[in-house]
């Protein structure tokens, strides 16, 4: 009875929030409330099947429909997807294995550049024959390849460093990421591999292999409309795959070994866990997730340069994992969604609002302090430019007040 009520409530909420977002496409709040329905789904005590159905309904049908009304929504959803995938990858390393990796973005960068170089004319600069850009069909090959390359680079970096104690490991991974970024930045000579700070463009998008099918059904969608939807579904599939893989690893001897290493490395070794091998595996799996996202990111952006792969990016993803709760899959998803929305919508929204105030030139009168013309608000004061402050606050406050995160890992209930 109770669960029926909950189901009804959920359906009603989803319907209302979607309608609102549909009719007020400019409202950030309306869209936020649609996004919140997924969180609600997680919390409400409805039957599992109902939850999965409603979740799929929101993600597969409602969001894309809303997104085709307002493309910005879809863009936000894609960004969230990218960060969810990255956060889930880092969660394996930091949350499960307990190793602080401060250079996670390096893996993401390496494979983003991999597709950028070969999926654009860039590779012609060092491979003669004018073979490039490769045909878009290669995108999927590179996506698979990136998983292997990511795992290999992860293991390659891990091999020498995994014996280091925790804080040194963190600094080495940071150094590694900085070296990767500096190389990407400077390898435009002597041979032009990466085109340096100017970046690479245009990068091929994935093939529209299903277009004939759409035509067959009489649907004529322009490419400009189709691509955002396409990327949305690609990232959705990728995220779902990553969640599935993570869950399956978590509930296996591998996941248990990871957590045991996190809790007590010596005891884990004494219980028969091959510590170094398991750490390497964790590094490799996390890196392979980031790598796959990297390829997708390059294809979506069309243009990439080293600026997208800074230390701040690594810390941003770390903040997501920590906010959500280390070692928790729902936590990583929530953290990534929350921080991305904060960055893309709330801070930008505040910046716009402040700009509006500034232009209105209204007078703010505070008793005893006199009045202040809002047009005098310094133009430098723009919340959207203070991402670092937000990340920093998240990290400090969470560590002091709630180190286990907003959605800490739950234990298995009785079956």
């Amino acid at each position, binding site marked *: 009875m109770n669960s029926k009520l909950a189901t009804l409530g959920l359906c009603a909420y989803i319907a209302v929030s979607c309608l609102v977002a549909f009719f007020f496409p400019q409202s950030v709040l309306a869209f936020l409330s649609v996004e919140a329905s997924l969180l609600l789904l997680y919390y409400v005590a409805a039957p599992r099947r109902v939850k999965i159905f409603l979740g799929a309904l929101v993600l597969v049908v409602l969001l894309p429909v809303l997104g085709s009304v307002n493309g910005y929504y879809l863009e936000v959803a894609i960004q969230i997807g990218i960060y969810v995938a990255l956060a889930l990858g880092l969660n394996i390393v930091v949350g499960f294995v307990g190793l602080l990796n401060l250079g996670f973005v390096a893996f993401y960068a390496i494979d983003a550049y991999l597709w950028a170089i070969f999926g654009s004319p860039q590779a012609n600069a060092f491979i003669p024959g004018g073979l490039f850009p490769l045909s878009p069909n290669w995108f999927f090959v590179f996506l698979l390849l990136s998983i292997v390359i990511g795992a290999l680079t992860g293991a390659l970096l891990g091999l020498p460093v995994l014996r280091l104690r925790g804080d040194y490991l963190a600094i080495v991974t940071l150094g590694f990421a900085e070296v990767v970024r500096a190389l990407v930045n400077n390898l435009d000579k002597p041979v032009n591999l990466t085109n340096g700070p100017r970046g690479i463009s245009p990068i091929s998008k994935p093939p529209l292999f299903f277009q004939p099918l759409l035509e067959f059904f009489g649907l004529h969608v322009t490419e400009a409309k189709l691509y955002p939807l396409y990327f949305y579904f690609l990232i959705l599939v990728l995220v779902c795959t990553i969640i599935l893989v993570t869950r*399956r690893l978590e509930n296996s001897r591998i996941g248990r*070994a990871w*957590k*045991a290493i996190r809790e*007590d490395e010596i005891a884990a070794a004494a*219980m028969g866990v091959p510590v170094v091998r398991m750490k390497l595996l964790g590094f490799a799996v996390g890196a392979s997730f980031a790598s796959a996202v990297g390829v997708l990111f390059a294809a979506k952006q069309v243009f990439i340069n080293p600026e997208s792969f800074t230390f701040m990016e690594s810390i941003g993803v770390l903040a997501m994992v920590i906010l959500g709760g280390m070692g928790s899959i729902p936590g990583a998803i929530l953290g990534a969604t929350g921080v991305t929305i904060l960055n893309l919508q709330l801070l930008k929204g505040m910046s716009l609002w402040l700009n509006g105030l500034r232009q209105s030139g209204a007078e703010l009168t505070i008793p005893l302090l006199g009045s202040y013309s809002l047009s005098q608000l310094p133009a430098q004061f723009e919340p959207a430019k203070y991402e670092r402050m937000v990340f920093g606050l998240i990290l400090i406050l969470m560590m002091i007040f709630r180190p286990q995160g907003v959605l800490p890992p739950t234990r298995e209930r009785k079956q």
Partner: protein
Amino acid sequence: MALLELRGISKRFGGLQALAGVSLELEDGMIASLIGPNGAGKTTLFNTLTGLYRPDEGEIHFQQRSLLGMNPDKITAAGISRTFQNIRLFSHMTVLENVLVGMHSRLKTSLPGILLRSTGFHIQENEARRRAMELIDLTSLSGREHEWAHQLSYGEQRRLEIARALAAAPQLLLLDEPTAGMNTTEAQALMTLFRKLIGNYVKAILLIEHNMRVVMGISDRVHVLDYGEKIAEGHPDEVRHDPRVIEAYLGQGIWSGNA
């Protein structure tokens, strides 16, 4: 044929000779105790035996196989597992998960098997859970399998360590002060459990113990360490009357039975 054979094990930390040529044999079916004053090298011997330390000299043979240079996880796979003096459970994992970690070396599903949830995976996982529950039962922890390890009481945590060590299906079980901090009833219950383990779950037990009532009540053989050297060995009654042992313990009142 001895199950475990240590020959002249020495270990030095800087200027401290922690172990000086310790030899020891353990037969199948035996419960042996390792006693000695604090700092005598008992835990160091355990750490050397389980691969946490490399001995400077000496040989370790387990079932006719040398264990020298093996990593801790390999030694566990070879059939020796242990508990820790200061409890080292995986606190943010459930009781059941703690025991399942102990089975790591016995589970063989490959990565693809795990990702694709192969039939083999399910069979192994179900069997592992069944065995884990059996061990949880054996250590009187049933009903608590889904609690976090850190939520258990002190005595329960000690028992969980034993269950976790048994999960590795060892031939030889090393227990580091298993009854520390327990009252007489709890210690008695553990002694009953240890006797039950021999022959059913493990071939032999070696324990470090300060509680002489436990040592005298349960051991087939007692080895005494002092300043890293083995000063006596024998049947409990012989050892307790050995003048060197009495000297080592002099003034500690340890034989009164409630130390």
